[in-house]
């Protein structure tokens, strides 16, 4: 991977990798989470349901780690074992090198004060003001009044909610409520922040602002953020690593650009589908299966992000020895890796000619042929 990166990279991509490496502290450092052969089975009248199956996983510290899967894939159960809101049926959860399954109630309370959590429906207390909501974790920990007030002011400023101290949550918008939730989760200066579908109840614009806030917090406070979502766009926006869960098992795991650029598992592909674009209808209608005399070849170029560098159309044209017309496509930049699919039209190209493109693109295939200018 590092070898391919020798190609010229945009500045922000270099900065990203350097930063990511600098932050990869020892795995047992503060905020590290490890699952060992974790199993969770629910028993109900309808029978036993195995929600998690033999999860072996290490979550690096200081990153934004995304867990994605369809509903019922076990994301929520997995997340909740980290602060023991969910007790595993078997296996261990190791936080900062300690097996939290052995903790007694006191140790568990202390652990939970080091792990913040935010929720899809915010879960703010309606009978308390913003200030009281954010202060509650400190109040139950028995901190002196003055230090509580000071800390509450700090975190409310951090999430951009100055001046809302004495407002009740019912008077706030969804985005503001989640900011209160984040402030409450951060008030103990945790090492880990768990986000349970934190943006699923928000509109796209608010989602983006909350995700930016999470990213800022991750950068400035250096805490580990573990978030679960069913939306690929959330993962793409903020996560560095992603875990795809499917029916309680790990489908695949890795840096987001890698998993998204070259999904290996059907579950990942299914989740990615809403982000991909199919062949435009007008084009599909005119597509012929065989070459048409004097017509053009439609080629789909796929970039997985592993190629390094950006799609260089002039170079492709030179390699093929013909001109290319760009018809349709999307290139995303994920963690500095360009990836996506482009549809191009060229004259007189056969399947064999495409072999020459190897190394420049992830994959290239002939989609079909059209009679003349599209």
């Amino acid at each position, binding site marked *: 991977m590092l070898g391919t990166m020798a190609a010229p990279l945009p500045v922000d991509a270099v900065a990203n990798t350097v930063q990511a490496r600098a932050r990869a502290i020892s795995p047992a450092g503060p905020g590290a989470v490890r699952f060992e052969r974790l199993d969770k089975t629910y028993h109900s009248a309808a029978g036993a349901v195995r929600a998690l199956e033999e999860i072996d996983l290490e979550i690096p510290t200081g990153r934004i780690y995304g867990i994605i899967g369809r509903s019922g894939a076990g994301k929520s159960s997995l997340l909740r074992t980290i*602060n023991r*809101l969910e007790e595993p049926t078997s296996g261990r959860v190791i936080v900062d090198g300690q097996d939290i399954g052995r903790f007694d*109630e006191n140790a568990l*309370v*202390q652990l*939970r*004060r080091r*792990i*913040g*959590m935010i*929720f899809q*429906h915010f*879960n*703010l*207390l*309606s*009978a*308390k003001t913003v200030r009281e909501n954010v202060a*509650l*974790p400190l*109040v*139950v*920990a028995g901190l002196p009044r003055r230090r509580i007030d000071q800390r509450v002011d700090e975190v409310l400023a951090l999430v951009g909610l100055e001046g809302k101290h004495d407002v*009740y949550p*019912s008077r706030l918008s969804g985005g503001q409520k989640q900011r209160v939730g984040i402030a*409450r*989760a951060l008030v*103990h200066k945790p090492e880990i922040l*768990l986000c349970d579908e934190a943006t699923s109840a928000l509109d796209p614009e608010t989602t983006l602002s909350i995700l930016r806030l999470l990213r800022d917090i991750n950068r400035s406070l250096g805490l580990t953020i573990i978030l679960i979502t069913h939306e690929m766009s959330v993962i793409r926006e903020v996560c560095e690593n992603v875990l795809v869960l499917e029916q309680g098992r790990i489908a695949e795991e890795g840096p987001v650009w890698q998993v998204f650029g070259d999904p290996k598992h059907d579950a990942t592909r299914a989740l990615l589908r809403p982000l991909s674009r199919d062949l435009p209808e007008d084009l599909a209608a005119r597509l012929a299966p065989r070459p048409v005399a004097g017509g053009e070849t439609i080629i789909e170029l796929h970039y997985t992000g592993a190629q390094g560098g950006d799609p260089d159309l002039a170079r492709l044209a030179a390699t093929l020895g013909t001109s290319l017309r760009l018809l349709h496509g999307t290139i995303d930049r994920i963690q500095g890796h360009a990836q996506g699919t482009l549809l191009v039209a060229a004259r007189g190209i056969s399947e064999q000619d495409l072999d020459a493109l190897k190394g420049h693109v992830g994959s290239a295939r002939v989609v079909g042929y059209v009679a003349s200018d599209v």
Partner: protein
Amino acid sequence: MSPAMYNRLWAAFLDTVQMVGASALIALLVGIPIAVFLVVSSPGGFYEAPRLNRAVAAVVNGFRATPFIVLLVALLPFTRFLTGTTIGVWAAIVPLSISATPFFARIAEVSLREVDKGLIEAAQAMGCRKWHIVRHVLLPEALPGIVGGFTITVVTMIGASAMAGAVGAGGLGDMAIRYGYQRFDTAVMVAVIIVLVAMVTIVQFAGDYTVRRLRDR
């Protein structure tokens, strides 16, 4: 109505206020812990204790199923044990509170049960102990419903306190029966009814107002 009768009416009113007030206070202080226990000890609660839960629930249901007038008589020995007498205001307070407490506990239980499970989860996640959850989450969040339920309890008790006259407790009900009914004094009867209606109206209004204030935030 003679001036003497007005004095009697005033004294009867004070007796009723005393009976209902004291019993309501007891129902509040005992009923809320019972309600909290029933909620947190039920299956899925954060302090599961199925057997004890069923036992407490059975006792609560037993008292609720017994009609007040029967309870009043059945409890006479217990009342004498506690207060040393079976007549008068304090003797009536014993059966009144024993009847009102389970009634109120059940109503409060419903409000507590309606508190969003997510809030309890959030409280656990932030490092709250069980007692903190009751104190900072369950009770404050259920407060509007509890106040509404307490209002209903007090209104029901004003009605029940009239029956306590049957054991010589005094109060407005006793006066209506003795003067209004047995002496055919319609004026007294009407006066008592007016006072009772006024009491119920004021209690209901105060309760509704408080609930509205609590919900409106």
